[in-house]
């Protein structure tokens, strides 16, 4: 949808007439937010849960729909096909607010034409990566930039434009090359029969879902979708979400009350982590990190690549320059490109997974882990642990001793042979520090400190502030130009309270004020990101948060006046305190509410402005009948009826021409480890998925008789990570690692409820207690429903520390990634299972250095490429 957050907010779910929960165990993983689903249910909404397991969410849903893990694109694609075939989509919304009417180029070829591949594909250049691997073997430390191997050339995916640069359209939606026609054709093979055959979902259930969604969408009604990591952690994860977005656009549910897509965040501050850019490839506010691969070595070059000509992202320069002013203060001037060259340049994928491989191969010297436990919750956890053995130094900031901080004394390890110098910094819990958290509503909420940090523990802010101060002191006398980013970094967060200052605590209020932004001329706070400038006269550490601290004395994150719904006076939601994104779409093209029942934001003709129960997500005084200006840039290129302000054309993207690496439309590919062939196309896996074929990352083969069962991982309500395992009141509720097995399989294999089982993959074995339950349902799939599929459920919350006991699922899962966002695949796997306990851990082959021939520079993944058709 063009923004890094859920389009809606939890409280609005209560207004839905139907809620489809898929890829999420909402009630268990987000029980507090689930109250709004229950409220919707009480108001008569239909709650549908689609999941491989019958969970606590299914228990309170009106309809539970079983599905084979890893087949959701077929399920959702099937609904798209059903809506289009039966003309049940919201025609006026689709015609006016989406790019359904845009025209594709003649040379675009769909997966229908190329059996699972889009036009523009060429195999990744193996020769090049082999050459760089050799250079690596030769001991060369200076890595060449490992540029993205050429795969999809997206030029044929671009939409046609007229001579003014405006998108060509066919408002009748009948042009054979218009996006809607393409959708019809692309999804035509996703029939109810195919859904049953691939997903194992009975057709009656599938059709009930289709009918429920269609009946509860349109002018008078809205349907909301909710998902979580059950949709994201796949090698086609981004395309899962895309399919849902297409569906919600077709149903006309985006930007409307009771509609939208609720992206559920699993932890308190996950939203904040991406907003303010702890991700390697982002600057705060969803701006890309400069990349040498994209040749962005100067500010001009960077802005040229990343500033969009039309739509809101035309403002990119203002946000980038303001960030640089926040980072480097008076040192950032127009003459030196605002110190743009101080920013690191990406040379490839430096996300967590490639970095772990690089660490294992000795290319990473130091590792700082804060609030994470990769030696247990990471995938291929033994790789992480053995990689850490090759570090020079390692710092863990956490409030409990955990599997990561203690990797050197784990079962089977020999501390005398591990040279890594380890530091453990005890950190304060949330009760011992103040600051903001950003939740799944994109909402910043301030929390005060209840008690002082206990013992030697320090706050996270203390740790980073003092680390920065010490680094600055160390480089104070340096004249080396490469040290200037540290010397010139603004770091003025001294606390105003003398008591806190003595302890070395920074002022997090000052941090938030800087993130909000201020005028570098007057020093006054800035109230709106529309006031940010690209001339250095403003500084802002993250434009999306601008407005949270609009003047010297107002911290909107502290607001605590709620109502039953939008609660605009409670906290601060980015952007600009808007609760529902793209809410212009809650009114028809003329600016009138689609219906009285679904009134939200509308055009007030008398006042000449947009008004409603939320902050309008649209230029406030831009009338609905404002025409688009041909050839104009920025927002002027959009008409007053184009609600999707972040997009080039102001429309919802049914077809995505740019931005996705693995295709402009979703396609069903089987997970890397699957028990079946792809029934839809010759191409088995996502050709662009990223993989590492190394002996410390062994994959189960596709359709491997040794691993006949589907395995899926998840969280349970009672447990989160190491910090819940240390709480006896939680530990007693789920005290041991367990897996869920259907009774049929248990009988077949002689597994007793409550007994021990060992689960195996090519990577390793773990043991767990068996919970045999009819909630796990074997499925019948394939043509004629001839294949029996058993799915095994495995919670990932367990480890060695705390009051619980048990192995971690991370020891079963080899690393592979989605090409767009580098997310691992841990929700759809294969395994074997047997009664009894595993053998004692030995130091296996993974501990030995990996042969050079299997390594890659900087741990970069290889692209999977086109499959030799497995069922040819």
């Amino acid at each position, binding site marked *: 949808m063009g923004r890094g957050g859920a389009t809606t907010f939890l409280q609005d779910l209560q207004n839905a007439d139907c809620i489809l929960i898929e890829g999420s165990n909402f009630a268990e993983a987000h029980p507090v937010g689930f109250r709004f689903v229950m409220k919707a249910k009480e108001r008569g909404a239909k709650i549908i849960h689609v999941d491989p397991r019958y969970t*606590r*969410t299914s228990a309170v849903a009106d309809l539970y729909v079983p599905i084979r893990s890893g087949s959701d694109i077929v399920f959702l694609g099937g609904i798209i096909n059903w809506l289009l075939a039966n003309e049940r989509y919201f025609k006026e919304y689709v015609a006016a607010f989406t790019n359904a009417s845009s025209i594709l180029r003649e040379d675009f070829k769909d997966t229908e034409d190329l059996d699972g591949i889009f036009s523009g594909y060429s195999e990744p250049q193996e020769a090049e990566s082999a050459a760089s691997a050799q250079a690596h073997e030769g001991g060369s430390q200076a890595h060449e930039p490992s540029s993205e191997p050429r795969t999809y050339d997206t030029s044929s995916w671009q939409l046609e434009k007229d001579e003014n640069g405006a998108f060509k359209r066919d408002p009748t939606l009948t042009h054979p090359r218009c996006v809607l026609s393409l959708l019809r054709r692309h999804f035509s093979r996703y029939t109810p029969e195919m859904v049953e055959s691939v997903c194992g979902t009975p057709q009656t259930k599938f059709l009930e879902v289709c009918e429920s969604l269609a009946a509860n969408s349109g002018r008078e009604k809205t349907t909301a979708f909710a998902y979580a990591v059950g949709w994201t952690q796949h090698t086609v994860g981004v395309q899962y979400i895309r399919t849902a977005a297409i569906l919600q656009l077709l149903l006309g549910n985006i930007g409307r009350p009771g509609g939208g897509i609720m992206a559920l965040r699993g932890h308190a501050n996950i939203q904040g982590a991406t907003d303010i850019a702890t991700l390697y490839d982002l600057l705060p506010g969803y701006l890309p990190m400069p990349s040498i691969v994209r040749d962005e070595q100067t500010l001009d070059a960077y802005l040229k690549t990343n500033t969009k000509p039309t739509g809101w992202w035309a403002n990119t320069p203002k946000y980038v320059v303001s960030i640089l002013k926040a980072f480097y203060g008076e040192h950032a001037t127009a003459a030196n490109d605002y110190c743009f060259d101080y920013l690191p340049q990406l040379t490839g994928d430096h996300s967590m997974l490639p970095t772990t491989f690089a660490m294992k191969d000795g290319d990473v010297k130091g590792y700082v882990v804060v609030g994470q436990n990769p030696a247990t919750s990471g995938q291929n956890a033994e790789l992480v642990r053995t990689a850490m053995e090759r570090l020079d130094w390692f710092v863990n900031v956490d409030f409990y001793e955990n599997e990561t901080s203690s990797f050197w004394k784990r079962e089977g390890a020999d501390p005398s042979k591990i040279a890594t110098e380890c530091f453990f910094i005890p950190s304060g819990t949330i009760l011992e520090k103040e600051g903001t958290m950003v939740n799944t509503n994109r909402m910043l909420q301030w929390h005060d400190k209840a008690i002082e940090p206990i013992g030697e523990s320090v706050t996270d802010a203390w740790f980073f502030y003092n680390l920065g101060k010490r680094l600055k002191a160390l480089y104070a006398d340096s004249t080396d130009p490469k040290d200037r980013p540290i010397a010139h970094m603004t770091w003025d967060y001294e606390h105003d309270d003398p008591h806190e200052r003595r302890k070395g605590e920074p002022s997090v209020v000052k941090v938030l004020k800087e993130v909000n932004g201020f005028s570098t001329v007057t020093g006054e706070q800035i109230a709106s990101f529309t006031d940010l400038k690209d001339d250095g006269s403003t500084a802002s550490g993250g434009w999306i948060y601008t407005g949270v601290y609009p003047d010297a004395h107002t911290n909107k994150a502290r607001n605590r006046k709620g109502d039953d719904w939008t609660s605009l006076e409670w906290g601060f939601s980015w952007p600009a305190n808007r609760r529902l994104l793209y809410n212009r779409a809650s009114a028809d093209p003329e600016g009138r509410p689609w219906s009285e029942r679904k009134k939200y934001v509308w055009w007030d003709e008398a006042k000449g402005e947009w008004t409603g129960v939320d902050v309008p997500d649209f230029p406030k005084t831009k009338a609905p009948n404002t025409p688009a200006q041909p050839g104009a840039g920025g927002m002027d290129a959009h008409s007053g009826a184009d609600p999707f302000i972040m997009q080039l054309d102001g429309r919802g993207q049914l077809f995505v021409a740019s931005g996705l690496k693995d295709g402009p439309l979703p396609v069903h590919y089987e997970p890397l480890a699957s028990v079946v062939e792809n029934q839809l196309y010759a191409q088995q896996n996502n050709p662009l998925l990223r993989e590492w074929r190394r002996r410390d990352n062994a994959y189960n083969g596709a359709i491997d008789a040794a691993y006949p069962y589907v395995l899926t991982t998840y969280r349970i309500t009672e447990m989160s990570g190491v910090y819940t395992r240390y709480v006896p009141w939680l530990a007693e509720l789920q005290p041991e690692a367990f897996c869920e097995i259907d009774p049929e399989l248990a009988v077949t294999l002689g597994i007793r409820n409550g007994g021990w089982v060992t689960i195996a993959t090519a990577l390793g074995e773990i043991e767990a*207690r068996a919970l045999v339950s009819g909630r796990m349902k074997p499925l019948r799939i394939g043509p004629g429903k001839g294949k029996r599929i058993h799915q095994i459920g495995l919670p990932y919350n367990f480890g060695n520390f705390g009051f619980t*006991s048990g192995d971690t699922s991370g020891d079963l899962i080899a690393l592979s990634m989605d090409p767009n966002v580098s997310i691992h695949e841990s929700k759809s796997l294969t395994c074997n299972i047997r009664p009894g306990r595993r053998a004692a851990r030995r130091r296996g082959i993974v501990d030995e250095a990996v042969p050079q021939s299997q390594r890659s520079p900087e741990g970069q993944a290889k692209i999977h490429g086109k499959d030799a058709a497995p069922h040819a």
Partner: protein
Amino acid sequence: MPNGFFTDTTLCIGCKACEVACKQWNELPSDGFEFSGNSYDNTLQLSGTTWRHVSFVEQMEVDREGSLTDRWLMMSDVCKHCTHAGCMDACPTGAIVRNEFGNVYIQPDVCNGCGYCVVSCPFGVVDLIGKGAGHDDYNVANLNGDRKDRQETALQATGGVAGKCTLCYDRQRDGFEPACAKACPTESIQFGDVAELQERAKKRVETLQERGVDSYLYGVDSKDSVGDLNAFFLLTERPEAYNLPPKPVLPATHQPAGYASAALAAVALTVAGAAIFARAR
């Protein structure tokens, strides 16, 4: 009317927040860390140190995929605070009283641990706090000062040995609702004046019946000897499914018959004795 709980099982999502909030507020120890294999229920029952307990009842049609009859029932159980409380009748020390909120309350400093209340509860709610409760399984790190040294639970520190829900007497006295009701995210546990709660609950049953959900109230307009329950439940299955007695009986109900048979036996023995002595003479 007294204060009490209305627990609506149709709103319960089995998150167990009530169990945890109760233990945290009342500083109760864990009951051990063993996997039961009994659905998602590992604490298994109410005890002297588990005052809220969520039971999980799986009713799955194994062979019919996604069959409509599939149900996974969840119910947060608690002390019923009976109108006629067996535990209170049985308590010889007067430790168990009905407090100003109409709740059945065990005064920990008066309780001598005789255990009469344990066998007198028709629901099996009251229990003695095990000796082991303060030891190995107890996270002593959560305690402070002298209690930590003596490895005692909060209740043991005040002398108490029989434990059950106090309906958060201390919180009520400060004007707060009980911890479990406060923590419940879906309003499955509602706290308030029992008359009002009963009113609300009856309407709720009507609404559910209209939607075709077969439901009833357990512990309202009761003809059982325990009388109305001040913590009552909305159920969708027969009581046995949730481990609740279908007809809870106050132990005192058996007393007239017991006394009568004892008296009869005494008379019979007297007669027999007299006869023997008469013959001997």
